[in-house]
Structures are given as C-alpha cells and as structure tokens.
C-alpha cells in the first residue's frame, strides 16, 4: 500500500530497489527507508509477539520511542524497525518475547 502519487507531495522519490529476507521470504524494499515501512508496504502487520501474553504487536509510534516494532535484524534482537534504515540483504525475523522463537522467554 505505497503512496506513489500524492495531491500535494507529487510522485514519490525512493531509493534503490533492494531485497530483504523476512522470516525466510524475500520482501522488496527501497534502500534507506525504515525496515518497518518496507514491511507495511508488503502487508506485514505483526512484527513480534510479547513475552508474557504472547500478544501480536506492530508499529505504534513510528518515531523510535515506543519500541513496539522491535524485531531481530541480522541476528540482533530489540532493533527498532521504524527508525532503522533498510539495507540490501538484511535478514529480519519476528521477535518472540526477548529473542527468536526457540528461546523460552
């Protein structure tokens, strides 16, 4: 659901076309845009599941403050995807609790 044309802002200017791997599947993105934006554009809404209630979470503040959109990026947990620029080949995984799915947490 990208906004390619806009009545005020005109045509969108985007970075180079790149590919991310999200939970094992390729996702098209534009270099430099926040990871969360590429995910939303490709229809992803659930970014992680919480520790206690295992509840789904997604983008909430989009400013890097609330930390709801954290995911595992290139093996590192708790990365705020709404303020982390996408780079070609990044490997992104949903976070379960404080880490990857296997970990009991």
């Amino acid at each position, binding site marked *: 659901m990208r906004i390619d044309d806009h009545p005020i802002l005109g045509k969108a200017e985007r970075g180079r076309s790149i590919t991310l791997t999200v939970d094992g599947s390729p996702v098209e993105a534009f270099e430099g845009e926040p990871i969360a934006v590429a995910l939303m554009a490709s229809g992803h809404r659930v970014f992680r599941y*919480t*520790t*206690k*209630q295992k*509840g789904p*979470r997604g983008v*909430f*503040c989009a400013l*890097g*403050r*609330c*930390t*709801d959109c*954290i995911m595992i990026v290139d093996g590192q947990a*708790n990365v*705020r995807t709404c303020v982390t620029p996408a780079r070609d080949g990044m490997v992104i995984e949903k976070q379960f609790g404080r880490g990857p799915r296997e970990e009991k947490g």
Partner: protein
Amino acid sequence: MKVDDLIICRCEEVTEGEIKEAIRLGLTTMSEVKWLTRAGMGLCQGKTCGRLVMSILVRETNQPPDEVKPPTFRPPTRVMALGALANGEKETE
C-alpha cells in the same frame, strides 16, 4: 474483558489491576509504582504509559494531579546497547 485486565504498560505488559494493587499496598508516587510493578521500566522507559499510570495514581489515591510528579529520570534517555558507554571517550557517571 475486565478493566483490571487492561494492559497499561505495553512494554512490560503491566495491567491496570496490577497497578491498582500496588497502590492499595500504600504506594503513592510514580517511582514507587514503577519499581514495584515494572510499569515504565521496559525498553521505552515509560514514554508511552507514563501519563496513563499517572492518571490511575491520581484517581486511586485522590491526590491532586499537580502532586503526582513523573518518576526520576536517569540517563540514558533512549535505548542503548550495553557497552556503548564503554566505547566513549571516557566513562560517565
């Protein structure tokens, strides 16, 4: 869903019931509630839930709102990886 089951602190998944329980134990300040319940101690450090906790505290303790101050703020103000401070020019307190 009961009001007490409502999540107030999104990071630490602290419910309204848990916060009210802490207040029933006699806690009256934001800092005390934070330490006991962990509301506001998660990754976002209370940036999202702070005002909600404050309003519950005001309501449950009948304090005037201008007597419920935010908890003490300490560095860092944003998420920092452990070791970032050690990478600096010198240690800070």
